[in-house]
C-alpha cells in the first residue's frame, strides 16, 4: 500500500512542477511592461476605495461550521458503510444498520436544529428585530 501513496505524492508533485514549468517558460515569451495603471485593482474602471480585506457576511462562517460537523460525521460513517456488505452476509445486519442509522440520526438532529433556528435561510435579518431602528 505504501507504494500507492508514493504514486499519489509523485503525481501531485509532477502536477505542481508542470504548472511551474509552464509559467517559467512563459517568462521568455510574454512581455513585461509594468505600469501603475495595470497594477491597480480592477473595479470596473472605478478607482478602488480602500482594501478588500474587510469583514464579510458572517453567514459564510455559519455554513462552514455546519459543513465541518457534517463532513466529520460522513468521514466516520464511511468505514461502517465499507464493511456493511460483509457484516450483513455474516448475519450481523442489525449491528451495521444500527450503527449507520445512529450516525444519520445525529446528523438529522443537527440539520433539524439548524433548520429550525433558521440558520439555513440566507435572506434574514442577522441583527434581530429588536435592534432595528
Amino acid at each position, binding site marked *: *500500500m505504501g507504494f500507492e501513496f508514493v504514486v499519489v505524492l509523485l*503525481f*501531485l508533485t509532477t502536477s505542481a512542477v508542470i504548472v511551474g514549468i509552464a509559467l517559467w517558460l*512563459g517568462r521568455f515569451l510574454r512581455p513585461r511592461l509594468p505600469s501603475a495603471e495595470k497594477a*491597480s485593482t480592477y473595479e470596473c474602471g472605478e478607482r478602488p476605495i480602500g482594501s*478588500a480585506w474587510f469583514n464579510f457576511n458572517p453567514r459564510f462562517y455559519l455554513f462552514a461550521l455546519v459543513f465541518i460537523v457534517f463532513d466529520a460525521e*460522513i468521514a466516520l460513517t464511511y468505514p461502517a458503510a465499507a464493511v456493511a456488505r*460483509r457484516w450483513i452476509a455474516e448475519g450481523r445486519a442489525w449491528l451495521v444498520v444500527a450503527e449507520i442509522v445512529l450516525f*444519520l440520526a445525529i446528523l438529522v438532529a443537527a440539520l433539524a436544529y439548524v433548520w429550525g433556528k433558521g440558520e439555513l435561510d*440566507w435572506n434574514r435579518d442577522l441583527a434581530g428585530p429588536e435592534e432595528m431602528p
Partner: protein
Amino acid sequence: MNIIQHVANLLIRSVFHADPASWPWTWLVQAVVIGIAAFLAFAFVAIFAGPVSWIERRIAGRIQSRIGPNRVGPQGVLQWLADGVKCWLKEDLVPAAADRPLFLAAPYLVFTGMFGAFVVLPFGAQVVAADLNVGILYLLAITSLVVVGLLMAGWGSNSKWALFGGVRSAAQLVSYEVPSAFSLLCVVLLAGTLSTQGIVAAQGGWPWDWFIFRNPFMFAAFFLYFTAAIAEGNRTPFDLPEAESEIVAGYNIEYSGMRFLFFLFAEWANIWIMAAISAFAFLGGWQIPGIAPEQIAATKGWEFVGWQALSWTIFLVKATFLVFVVIQIRWTLPRLRVDQLMITCWKYLVPLSMLMVLGVLVLLALVPEGGGADTILRGAMVGLGLAVVLVSALRVRRTFRVDREHYREMEGRDLWYPPYRLP
C-alpha cells in the same frame, strides 16, 4: 500488482537485464515511470480540456441558434490552441495591492487539487495509477484542495469582486460536498469497498448490473450526485463564484495570462473528472458487457491489449456522454441566486441524499442479492431508465415537429439541420 510496478519491472527486465527484486535502482525506474504516467495524464487533461471547450462553444452556438467559433483551423477545431497560445503570450500581472505569495500560489493549489483526482480514476480493466484502498475518501479529500486554492485566489487578490467570488465558491463547494459524499456513501454500501477499482468490479457490463439501476434509491442517488457534482465544478446553474453579470469574474478576476488559464484548465478538467466519477460509481465504469474482469486478466498479448482498449473506450464514451449532459444543462438552466443555492443544497439535497443512504441500507439488509426480489427491482429500474430515455426522445421530436411547420410557413425552408452538418 500495480500497473506502474508492472511496467517498471518489464522495463528493468528487458532494458537493464536485471532482477527487479534485487536491483538497487528499481525505485528510480519506478519513480520515472510514475512521472511519465503523470505526464500522460496531464497530456490527456490538456488534449481533453481543449477540444471540449471548443465543443461546448459549438454546442452553445447551436442551442442558441447561432454558429459558434469556426475560424481557427477547419471549422474552428484549433480554437482552443489559439486561446492557449494567446494566454501564454500575455503579460503576467500581479496587482500592487495583492498578497503576493497567496496570489502566486493559488493556481498551483487549484491545478494540483484537480489533477490529484486522476490518480484513482479507473480508466481500464487494469489501468489505474494507484488503486488506493481509501479511493473514494481520497477523491473527496483531494478535490477539497481546490477550495483552498479558490479562497487563496479570492483573498489574495485584494479585490472586492475576487473576495466575493472566493467566499461564495468556498461556501458552495463545502456545502455541496455533503450531498455528494452521501450519494457516494450509497455506492460504498453496495460495493463494500472504498477502492475505485473495487467499485467497478462490484458492477457489471450490462445495465442491470450497474449501480444506478440496482434499486430506486440508487437511481435517485445518481441524480443527486450529479447535481452536487455540477455545483462542485462551479458549473451553471451553480456558477455563482464566477457570475459575470454580478461579480464580473469572481475569484480569478485579477489573474491574467497563463495563471488565469490554469484556473480555466482546472475547471474544464473538473467537468471531466466529475463525469468520470459518476460513470465509474454509478454507470458500470469500464466493464465490458458479457466479459468478466478475470477473463480479461487471463488473456495474453494483443488480445489483452484489445480488451483493454475496449474497456477504455467504454469508460470514455460513458464519461463523455455525461460531459455533454453537463454542457447542455449549462445552456438550459438559468443561474441560481445565492440564497436559492444554499437552500437547494441544505434543505433539499442533503435530506434527500440521507434518505437515499437509509433506503439503500435497508434494501441491502432486507433484499438478498441475486434473489427474485432483487431481479425484479433491477428489471423495473432498467425499464424506468429506458422509459426516461424514450420519453425525452419523444418530447424532443414533438418540440421539433411543432416548430418545423411554423418555420416552413415563414421561411420556406426546412428546419432540419443535424449537428454533424457544421455551418
